[in-house]
């Protein structure tokens, strides 16, 4: 009897997150779709002007989408080499002592709240970059990419390190036994074997960057123009929602437009996560780790 009760309790708990997910999806669709009817799909996605509070309002989110794409791409340039590089170092080169310090420290980085990163970027990095490069303002795509890239390092590093450690020892031993040196073994045996695990980590890092809000709100500047340079202020999707949702009239077109941006963002990160899941499943099978 008691066992049965526990069983129900845990079943309910497990399914509750499904309920929340379903609720979120339903709300995003019901609140987001009306704008496609009033503005038109093409005008909404490819419109170049974002003037939500004027008469007549304009809801063109192309500059906002491109800003998200740009800042994500920029952040990847920062976090992929650093994240994968640190994973390789921790796994292949570091001694036990170094590893036991480095790994937890990198993981602490992931526990820092994003507002702290945003504050750091706004108060320290942005004025520094402005002076260093003699820019009109340091609040720009470059600074945002840099800070977001740093934020995504722990995700990529710790997942890549896991992927490296899943490579069976026999692979490495076989390669070394055939006379390959350490570098050849790493580049031609270990990396290809861990490749899909590392790709998964990169995609999950990307999904974290694309969804990051507080930092870009504080650091990216927030101009809704089509981004033409990394050194100009830009306004990604997340910060648009965060900055305007509080003041949008509930039920207005502006309100629906913000939900529609959220919907697009949700679909994009969903695609990222599905791809990551597919790759990692394939990879587990390849290494014979599937049950």
């Amino acid at each position, binding site marked *: 009897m008691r066992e049965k009760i526990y069983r129900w309790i845990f079943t309910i708990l497990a399914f509750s997150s499904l309920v929340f997910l379903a609720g979120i999806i339903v709300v995003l669709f019901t609140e987001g779709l009306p704008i496609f009817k009033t503005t038109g799909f093409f005008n909404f996605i490819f419109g170049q002007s974002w003037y*939500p509070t004027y008469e007549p309002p304009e809801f063109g989110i192309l500059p906002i989408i491109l800003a998200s794409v740009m800042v994500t791409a920029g952040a990847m340039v920062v976090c992929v080499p650093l994240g994968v590089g640190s994973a390789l170092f921790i796994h292949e080169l570091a001694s036990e002592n170094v590893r036991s310090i480095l790994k937890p420290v990198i993981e602490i980085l992931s526990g820092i709240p994003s507002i702290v990163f945003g504050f750091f970027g706004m108060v320290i990095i942005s004025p520094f970059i402005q002076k260093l490069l003699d820019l009109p303002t340091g609040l720009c795509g470059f600074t945002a990419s840099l800070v977001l890239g740093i934020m995504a390092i722990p995700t990529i590093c710790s997942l890549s390190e896991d992927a490296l450690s899943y490579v069976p020892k026999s692979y490495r031993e076989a390669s070394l036994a055939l006379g390959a040196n350490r570098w050849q073994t790493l580049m031609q045996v270990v990396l290809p074997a861990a490749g899909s695990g590392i790709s998964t980590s990169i995609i999950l890092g990307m999904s974290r960057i694309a969804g990051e809000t507080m930092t870009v*709100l504080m650091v990216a500047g927030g101009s809704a123009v089509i981004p033409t340079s990394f050194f100009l202020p830009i306004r990604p999707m997340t910060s648009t929602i965060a900055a305007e949702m509080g003041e949008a009239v509930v*039920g*207005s077109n502006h309100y629906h437009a913000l939900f529609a941006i959220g919907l697009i963002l949700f679909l994009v990160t969903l695609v990222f996560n599905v791809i990551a899941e597919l790759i990692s499943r394939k990879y587990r099978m390849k290494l014979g780790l599937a049950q």
Partner: protein
Amino acid sequence: MKTKNIALAVVLGLVMSSGTLSAAGKKIVMEGSTTVLPIAQIAAEEFMKMNPEADITVRGGGSGVGAASLIDKSCDIANMSRAMKDTEVQKAVGRGVEPKAHVVAMDGIAVILNPSNPIKSFTRQQVKDIYTGKISNWSKLGGEDKKIVVVSRDSASGTYEAFGALALGGAKLRKDALMQASNQAVANTVGATPNGIGYVGLGYITDKVKAVPVAGVTISKTTVLTAKYPYSRPLFMYTNGAPQGDVKDFFDFLLSADGQKLVDEAGFVALKEKK
């Protein structure tokens, strides 16, 4: 199966009801503009000190949120840094709510520059040209040959709307303006950007920025109250119909000399100037 259904119903019920919990009894809920928030907060604290049985909750969220919750009847007082829009009033009337405006204070919007900027004053036209994109270099105004970094509040804020109406006459803001999420962030950005220009509420002028006279008038409490300063605006609190009971007592307090002293302390302009 049945247990699961009941549990689901409970979860959903909780999620849904949290939005509609209304203010019952003596509890007063105020919600809305972050600009009006400091006034609401300090006035509520003082009022509760004087009337220990009163219970006032103050929430931010923005003018739009305030209007929406007044319409939903989930707040008693909506704080707003702009007047209610026609669409909002219509919606309220449709739901049987009769929004009544109360001006509780005056606020001035200062045009601020980095202290290192040599510019001494603006005409209204110059401010408009900078913010609409006609002027993009300080040299056109007699300053250095540097690009102007235009800083604005995000396009949904009450301050932005007030500035858009008062300074731009409804013209569209240039697209490349930096959007900041709060008055404080605008002041910080201009303070850190030598070629920046921004606008903030009177209470947010710090020593890291300088407020520049517009049309020959320096912003001050007096010039805002007399509306000599061009970018002056009233701050509102809206109620459903004429205030009654505790809500009425609250307004009586806020509009009294003591209440208006708190407005002054919060950095805004009291409705009656005290000598």
